[in-house]
């Protein structure tokens, strides 16, 4: 007798994608310590083959199989992988899985070593089964069984009987109850049982059968039936295929012929069961001619309705190019402002907000991410900071006019976010046109510049914030200017202690502004 584990063994399996039969056999083999090289895995062909079980384990004195392993454990990942790989049609899959199972007993991390030859092969098989499943979901084509269906097949299977059964008819001739569909598909692997639940979840309100040479699935609204018996192609047709073919021919763009790209995703082996596939050679052959015809076609006069459409699209009123006389008109005109290149990058102009006779006017730097999206000033994090502190000193933003020196958001995209960028002198100057207009129309008594950009714009000259901070300065036109920091500055201070200090200073500024504005 050969030493234990080396004795040659033949295991014959049904091999139609059932995981259980392999698992049972593999467990028994591993229990008695049969080496992977000693097993001959075979697939049963036809009903006459004998199913040879592995021999019963020889028991040792303790009543356990000789050479038995204390216990067999495998990582969960292996089970998932094996359940998929077992559906592959390669006869070598049983042996490969058993060898991997054997190796896993000593090399627990084997599956992580994705460059190991066995693991590479297993992963490739798994991918192939997944791809076949995916292609089945993509390329199954249902034909309706009913008035518009006909068959040219002469085979007589159970499926044919189902198809031949007439749909129940109402007196009007319209079928009642559930509609019935049939599909013929030819998969590479034993995937019908894997893919069938997908079709059940998707085509729940119709009866259907999917028949293949590797088994069939059927759904009748209550039960999903899957068999592994091979079926025949009943060769049905469906009138709707004509419309689908029309769609397929016309959605194709002859100017972009990429035949290889098509074939790598829709290999020829699938073509014979796709109603659109026989159009392909003609579409390819005619593509060049179509493109040439397009290029040579002389430009014709526009159709009659074009003139009418043009006329209707003409602006109804004369364009108003004068300086807007009201805040509303200014706001409307600012929407289309292109005075500086920022307008091409921002979402919209964020104009000022508040009563048009406000005595107090706050000027910030520019809108941020949130302001840019919503089209309103000071609603983002800096605006919230401003509101909180203003609330603490009883300063009501509702009575003030709030605006920015620059009315488009300037930023740098960084992945899914936008990073704020400081506007430059040119942008500030270009946008000053609007700020001046706002000042002239509203005539505030006190203007608060928050931050250096606002100060620069109000003064029309680059100024240092520290020279003006927390001071009331009289301007030429009878207005007063008060300068403080921009609230977003407070958000950016990393040191908590300093941050508190600066917030206190900002609060004192707002307190001073409140007092000043009460005397206006």
């Amino acid at each position, binding site marked *: 007798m050969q030493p234990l584990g080396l004795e040659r063994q033949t295991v014959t399996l049904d091999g139609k994608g059932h995981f259980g039969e392999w698992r049972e056999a593999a467990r028994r083999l591993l229990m008695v310590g049969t080496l992977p090289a000693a097993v001959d895995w075979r697939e049963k062909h036809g009903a006459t083959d004998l199913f040879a079980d592995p021999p019963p384990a020889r028991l040792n004195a303790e009543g356990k199989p000789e050479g038995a392993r204390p216990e067999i454990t495998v990582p969960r990942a292996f089970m998932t992988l094996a359940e998929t790989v077992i559906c592959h049609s390669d006869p070598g899959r049983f042996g490969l899985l058993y060898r991997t199972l054997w190796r896993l007993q000593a090399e627990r991390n084997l599956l992580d070593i994705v460059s190991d030859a066995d693991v590479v092969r297993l992963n490739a098989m798994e991918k192939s089964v997944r791809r076949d499943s995916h292609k089945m979901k993509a390329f199954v084509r249902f034909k309706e069984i009913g008035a518009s269906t006909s068959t040219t097949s002469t085979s007589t299977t159970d499926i044919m009987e189902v198809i031949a059964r007439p749909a129940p008819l109402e007196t009007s001739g319209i079928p009642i109850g559930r509609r019935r569909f049939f599909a013929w598909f030819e998969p590479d692997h034993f995937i019908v049982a894997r893919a069938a639940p997908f079709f059940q979840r998707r085509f729940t309100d119709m009866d259907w059968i999917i028949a293949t040479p590797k088994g069939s699935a059927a759904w009748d609204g209550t039960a999903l039936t899957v068999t592994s018996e091979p079926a025949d192609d009943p060769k049905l047709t469906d009138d709707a295929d004509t419309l689908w073919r029309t769609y397929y021919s016309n959605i194709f763009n002859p100017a972009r012929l990429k035949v290889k790209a098509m074939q790598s995703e829709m290999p020829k082996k699938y073509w014979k069961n796709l109603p659109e596939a026989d159009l392909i050679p003609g579409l390819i052959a005619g593509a060049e001619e179509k493109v040439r015809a397009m290029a040579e076609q002389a430009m014709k006069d526009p159709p009659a309705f074009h003139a009418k459409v043009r006329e209707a699209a003409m602006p109804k009123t004369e364009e108003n190019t004068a300086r807007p006389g009201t805040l509303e008109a200014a706001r409307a005109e600012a929407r289309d402002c292109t005075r500086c290149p920022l307008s091409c990058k921002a979402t*919209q102009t964020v104009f000022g907000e508040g009563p048009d006779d406000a005595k107090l006017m706050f000027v910030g730097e520019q809108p941020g991410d949130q302001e840019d999206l919503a089209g309103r000033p000071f609603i983002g994090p800096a605006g919230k900071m401003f509101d909180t502190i203003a609330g603490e000193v009883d300063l009501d933003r509702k009575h003030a006019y709030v605006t920015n020196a620059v009315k488009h958001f300037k930023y740098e995209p960084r992945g899914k976010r936008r990073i704020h960028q400081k506007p430059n002198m040119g942008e500030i100057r270009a946008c000053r046109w609007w700020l001046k207009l706002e000042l002239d129309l509203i005539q505030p008594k006190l203007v608060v510049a928050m931050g250096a950009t606002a100060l620069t714009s109000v003064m029309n000259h680059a100024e240092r914030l520290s020279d003006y901070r927390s001071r009331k300065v009289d301007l030429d036109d009878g207005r007063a200017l008060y300068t403080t920091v921009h609230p977003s500055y407070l958000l950016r201070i990393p040191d908590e202690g300093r941050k508190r200090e600066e917030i206190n200073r900002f609060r004192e500024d707002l307190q001073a502004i409140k007092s000043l504005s009460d005397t206006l």
Partner: protein
Amino acid sequence: MKKSLKERLAILSDAAKYDASCASSGTTKRNSSASGGLGSTEGSGICHAYAPDGRCISLLKILMTNFCIYDCAYCINRSSSNVERARFSVEEVVWLTLEFYRRNYIEGLFLSSGIIRSSDHTMEEMVRIARELRVTHNFRGYIHLKSIPEASAALIEEAGLYADRLSINIELPTDAGLTRYAPEKRPAGIRKSMGDLRLKIEEMRDPTLQTKRIRRFAPAGQSTQMIVGADQANDSVILGTSARLYGSYGLRRVYYSAFSPIPDASRNLPLVKPPLMREHRLYQADWLYRFYGFGIDEITRDQPDGMLDLDLDPKLAWALANRQRFPVDINKADREMLLRVPGFGTKIVRAILTARRHRTLRLEDLVRLKVSLKKVQAFIIAEGWTPSRLIDRPDLRTMFAPKPEQLVLL
């Protein structure tokens, strides 16, 4: 005489082919098990067919009508074009979608339209189609609606309740280009629509205070499309615009569509072969930006005229211009640097990071992972491999560039 359904399908699918997107992925997972109706979406999209142009056919992509009051030069349906016109009724689009779906031709509907009468009138009809499918027919497949420019916020909001994805095309990379070629479209209006949609999607994603439930609103987000090669914008400008759109509006995708000659084309446009390779390179650069940690300026900085190299993929071109960053040790380098190695995709990088925890990797390991050694070996160090002189070779570029072709006599 009224055209048959088949004739109109031919016209209105022909008119829809210039929209590149056919994605049906990235939406919520749902099916009809409980409802007993029709349709499901299970995460990944499914391409039910491929046309000989290499494009996936996943959705029934049609226009509701190709009549249009706009006159955009690049568009086959512009009002001055002599293309044959047709229109579907709401019921016909619903019928076609459901019958195509039942035969497993498609994942759902991608509906766009020329603008008839007004933006709101057009959008209203499109929303009606989506509502019919979802509410009357209990349809759970994928729906992508193209928002009509300047349509009212209320209609867009309703569209988002039924559609998986909403999109509005930016069309051209610069405002100047759009103003020139599409005089009726307002670039700022398009950006505003995208901004509004982002805010709405974010608002609906937050659970409500009362019910704590997340409401379904355009779960597959928004996307857009840019035409490449119709105007003079270079790749650097195009990619800069994409980066801004991704950063500003949370777009899932920016599609690039090589400008393709259209019948009865406007004289303002180049009637040349669509720049398919350029389009391909832009997609590669877009991927580098979104999944490989590259900045747009890094990708285009070393390229003359701001155009991507047509002979080399953008990562390889970057690596050749930045040789001082190589070779990279595949057993030690961090994920960020591995992703920058030409020839390594995100999956390979993941595999390397997993495998090297257990063994030191050699070139043979990479071969088994189906990595092209020809492409990577100059840029990496592995156990038993150092590309000592390779990376410094002055002719390194010629090792990768395609063989020069003999000029075709025209």
